[in-house]
């Protein structure tokens, strides 16, 4: 089994090296994509095998070699395959495989095709390290690794020029990439601090050691660790206020958005909280957990509001991702870790599907993103239409669909915990989710064929690509059915990951479910009403609404990016320039002034050397005089 672990871990790496080192600089070679995909598939197969092994035999813990050891610190390259990591592995490798295959089609015209696969596989490798690592430092490797890959991939089309913020809120791919990287680094600092705290209080970074020792630590330290780690999670999972990068990251190619910014990397934060469940379920950090839940709820709601009016097809999906991440955090914060993890997996499937579908639309529309310019695509792109529909149903949480089980469980959990405000917000958000996801579907696939006026000739994606997407669709529909099995599976991990609804909640479950479903259906209906009409009923822009404050607020993402620009980026830039000025003028200037002062004194005192013997004699006389006077005075005084 150990070999399998390494195979799972390193085959994406091999794929990356294959694509990058051998062909990184050469013209497009289709087979690089296929080789990379195949290698990811190997990972998937290994992951599934490992999952079976975990379910039947138990967790696996391997140590490859030492990494850093200094002082008392000893960090190995160690990997642990348990219920949590194996879930993630399966999800990640599955989505990755599909996205890889998808990308062979999607990217086939890009001249940096090979490079793309190098990055994409590297990302999977980093993600695998993140998931599989058995210590916080290893996690951090993956954490940063996915960050870099995200940077590379978001900025994949680096050659695009910057556009003004008003024209394009994400300015340019390279800008968005940098933003994502930097914002993540802010959070990483929090994570590092968490790691330091753990090390200095426990003396190890190994999960098992750390979690065993945690209950014996002082409350204050535990709270600090919990906060610090969560700050790390906030960045990667784009929680408020570190969320702006995620929507901007949509500048990257769509497969990237599907893989990284929907299914895998952004869930790393949730993964971290779940991984650290023994910590977050401690009584001492209850406050932090509640905060996590509240923040998650807030983000879920907050992102959903923005999605309501967004025009950019990828932004809508991204905002919905944000919103769903909020759900996951809400669950994790409330202690329902396995539900959060389950939703994570379900979300990965349907959101990847949604993104890939959106990618198909873009592909068809020559990278046009504005849904106002689409409409009535359903005939031209039937396959994508179906996939998008399935995914949206799943996202909206309609029965049978995966989203129904997982999301509903989260909402139920909120009710179960007695946090009714959270529950209420989540319910409302569920309604909004249904509305905006179907708004998007109807906008693009139903209604007037607005694209025709603009001269697009859409056609659907390659067949094989659509077929490759089928597993995702299947899982988007069916994944929820396995919730019971999954529960059994994950309950084998430990006590704290277990979560059961109380009897009362169970009793009310059908009612709660119906409320959510009702709201979702209302949302879908509203969307249908407004956007799906053709001819007479066709959607028209509502200028008045678009001029309203609410619309402006939402359109500008609550002015958060603007706030960052005005109050962080610009002051930073100005301060930097000022500091530079200060450095040159004052710090360096002082040194130069000292030098100049020396020269000036030299130049001035050179005046005594005027060449005239008479004044030399006078100087000598004055000197003698002074010496004698000092002599007389000091002898008189003392």
């Amino acid at each position, binding site marked *: 089994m150990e070999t399998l672990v390494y195979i799972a871990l390193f085959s994406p790496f091999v794929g990356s090296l294959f694509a990058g080192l051998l062909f990184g600089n050469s013209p497009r070679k289709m087979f690089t994509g296929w080789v990379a995909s195949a290698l990811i598939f190997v990972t998937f197969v290994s992951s599934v095998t490992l999952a079976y092994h975990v379910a039947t035999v138990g967790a696996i813990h391997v140590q490859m070699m030492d990494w850093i050891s200094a002082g008392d610190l000893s960090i190995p390259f160690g990997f642990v395959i348990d219920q949590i990591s194996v879930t993630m592995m399966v999800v990640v490798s599955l989505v990755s495989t599909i996205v890889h295959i998808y990308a062979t089609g999607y990217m086939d015209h890009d001249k940096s095709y090979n490079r793309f696969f190098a990055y994409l596989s590297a990302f999977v490798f980093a993600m695998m390290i993140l998931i599989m690592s058995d210590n916080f430092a290893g996690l951090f490797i993956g954490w940063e690794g996915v960050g870099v890959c995200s940077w590379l991939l978001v900025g994949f089309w680096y050659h695009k020029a910057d556009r003004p913020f008003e024209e394009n809120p994400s300015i340019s791919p390279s800008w968005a990439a940098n933003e994502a990287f930097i914002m993540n680094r802010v959070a990483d600092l929090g994570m590092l601090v968490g790691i330091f705290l753990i090390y200095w209080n426990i003396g190890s970074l190994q999960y098992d050691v750390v979690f065993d020792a945690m209950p014996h630590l002082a409350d204050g330290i535990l709270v600090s660790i919990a906060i610090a780690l969560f700050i790390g999670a906030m960045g990667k999972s784009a929680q408020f206020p570190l969320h702006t990068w995620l929507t901007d990251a949509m500048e990257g190619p769509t497969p990237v958005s599907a893989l990284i910014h929907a299914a895998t990397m952004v869930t790393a934060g949730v993964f971290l909280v779940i991984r650290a469940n023994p910590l977050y379920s401690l009584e001492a950090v209850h406050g932090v957990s509640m905060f996590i839940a509240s923040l998650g709820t807030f983000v879920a709601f907050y992102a959903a509001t923005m999605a309501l009016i967004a025009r950019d097809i990828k932004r809508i999906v991204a905002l919905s991702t944000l919103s769903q991440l909020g759900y996951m955090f809400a669950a994790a914060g409330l202690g329902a870790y396995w539900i959060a993890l389950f939703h994570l997996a379900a979300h990965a499937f349907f959101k990847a599907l949604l993104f890939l579908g959106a990618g198909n639309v873009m592909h068809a529309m020559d990278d046009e993103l504005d849904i106002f310019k689409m409409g009535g695509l359903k005939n031209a792109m039937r396959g994508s239409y179906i996939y998008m529909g399935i995914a949206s149903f799943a996202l909206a949480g309609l029965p049978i669909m995966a989203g129904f089980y997982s999301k509903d469980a989260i909402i139920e959990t909120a009710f179960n915990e007695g946090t009714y405000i959270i529950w209420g917000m989540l319910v409302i958000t569920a309604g909004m989710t249904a509305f905006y996801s179907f708004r998007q579907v109807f906008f693009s696939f139903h209604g007037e064929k607005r694209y025709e006026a603009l001269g697009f000739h859409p056609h659907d994606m390659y067949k094989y690509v659509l077929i490759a997407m089928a597993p995702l669709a299947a899982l988007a529909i069916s994944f929820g059915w396995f919730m019971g099995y999954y529960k059994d599976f994950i309950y084998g991990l430990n006590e704290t990951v277990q979560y059961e609804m109380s009897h009362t909640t169970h009793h009310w479950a059908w009612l709660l479910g119906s409320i959510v479903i009702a709201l979702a259906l209302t949302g879908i209906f509203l969307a249908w009403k407004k956007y799906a009409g053709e001819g007479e009923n066709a959607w028209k822009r509502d200028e008045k609404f678009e001029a309203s404050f609410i619309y402006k607020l939402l359109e500008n993402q609550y002015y958060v990016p603007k706030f960052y620009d005005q109050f962080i980026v610009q002051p930073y830039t100005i301060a930097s320039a000022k500091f530079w000025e200060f450095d040159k003028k004052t710090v360096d200037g002082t040194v130069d002034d000292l030098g100049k002062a020396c020269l000036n004194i030299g130049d001035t005192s050179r005046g005594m050397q005027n060449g005239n013997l*008479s*004044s030399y004699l*006078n100087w000598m*006389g*004055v000197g*003698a*005089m002074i010496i*004698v*006077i000092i002599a*007389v005075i000091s002898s008189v005084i003392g």
Partner: protein
Amino acid sequence: MYETIAFYTFAISTTILFLITVMSKNVLYAMTALASGMVMISGFFFLLGADFLGVVQLIVYVGAVMALYGFAMMFFDATRDIKEKHQNPALVFLLGGLMALMFVVIFSAPIIGDNVQALYPIVEGVGNAQAVGMVLFTKYLVPFEVAALMLLVAMIAGIILAGKKMDYSLTTSEAADEEINVEEKLQADIEREKGEA
């Protein structure tokens, strides 16, 4: 009493004479005043029982040195009044005055120690010249010889510096590196002068 009168007479006259020396605009006056002042100083030496020193003062200073100055004065044609630009006369007087004040302060202190033994005592009944000679040719023989050396140096220096050979510089560019023979040139000069005469 006699000593007091003599002291003050000499003191006042030397002071005035030396003041003239340093203040006068006329070289001749200054030099005359200097010579007279030195004569007066020899008076102190006689007063202080240093007869031989007084004589030497008269001979060397008033005789030799002043003669030298006299020749120099003739060479420089300095009989006219000399104009000197004084940038800060006040400072000079201040310094001089302060210096004098300091010396007054310093020398008001009891300088003569009671316990100090004379190393080369003045023997009663021995003439000053004799005593001086005795010390000079025993204890101070070496300095005396060195003084002779110093005078030799001064002599050589005077001869070289005032010599005609200094008129032709091998150092500066005017005579650069042509292998000119200084002696020849000198000879030529002398002959030309003769011819002119």
